[in-house]
């Protein structure tokens, strides 16, 4: 299984993170849920669902922090019986990037994921291109989404 990226600058940091943190699934996306890169997903539907849900969770908790008059939460972690889900965001020149990672509790740990997330964040900041503002038209969006999904799944 290999990592795949719509935006090439995310690929190496993502690959390093997957290897070091031994995570099972990773999504890099914008706060709006647009996927930049992924590892471990086998179906486009799963990617879209995870991206939408991840973005929604970040938005909800961001709003919660705002209402508490606090800075946004640095990271969220949900721990199940066998898996953990880690969600965090980082700022880059390209804009905010949200990271969703799923890890096996037998293989990795929150500590490892956090440790190597920090490393990935530094690498992403260093690699990110400058933000290019672009007006998105409806037909462009659908084409771009389709192209993104093809790229993410190696088609």
């Amino acid at each position, binding site marked *: 299984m290999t990592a795949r990226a719509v935006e090439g600058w995310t690929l190496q940091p993502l690959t390093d993170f997957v290897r070091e943190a031994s995570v099972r699934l990773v999504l890099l996306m914008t706060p709006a849920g647009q996927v930049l890169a992924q590892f471990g997903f086998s179906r486009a539907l799963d990617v879209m669902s995870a991206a939408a849900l991840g973005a929604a969770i970040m938005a909800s908790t961001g709003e919660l922090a705002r209402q508490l008059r606090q800075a946004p939460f640095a990271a969220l972690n949900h721990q199940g019986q066998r898996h953990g889900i880690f969600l965090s965001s980082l700022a880059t020149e390209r804009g905010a990037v949200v990271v969703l990672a799923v890890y096996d*509790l037998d293989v*990795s*740990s*929150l*500590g*490892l994921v*956090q*440790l190597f997330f*920090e490393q990935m964040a530094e690498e992403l900041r260093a690699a990110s291109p400058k933000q290019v503002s672009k007006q998105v038209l409806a037909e462009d969006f659908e084409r771009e989404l389709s192209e993104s999904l093809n790229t993410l799944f190696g088609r």
Partner: protein
Amino acid sequence: MTADVFRQALDLITRVRGVRGAMLVSGDDGLVVAEQLMEGIKGTAVAALTASLAGRLRRAMDAAGVGSSVFWHLQAEQGALLVVPGIGEGGLLVVAVAEPDVNIGLVRLELLRAAEAVG
């Protein structure tokens, strides 16, 4: 379990000459529970990596039939990591980061005492 108990437990370890830092680490998560570290030691990294290594070592020792670890010592050119798994539930690890020529026997003793204190 209060912060004072943790601090006193770590004091026992950091008093030993050659110890650069001592920590209590959650073995399951690899997160820092308490720490006393000299400048330059990355506590989050120590916690995460030590917990991960402890888990792998535990599986190897189980397979070898020597039972759970009571104490382990990772020796390197420029330092050492010494670890005692805690006594109670929760998978706490008592960790010391030390110079390579530290008195291992003494550190081991203090790690065991600290584990008993926080157990």
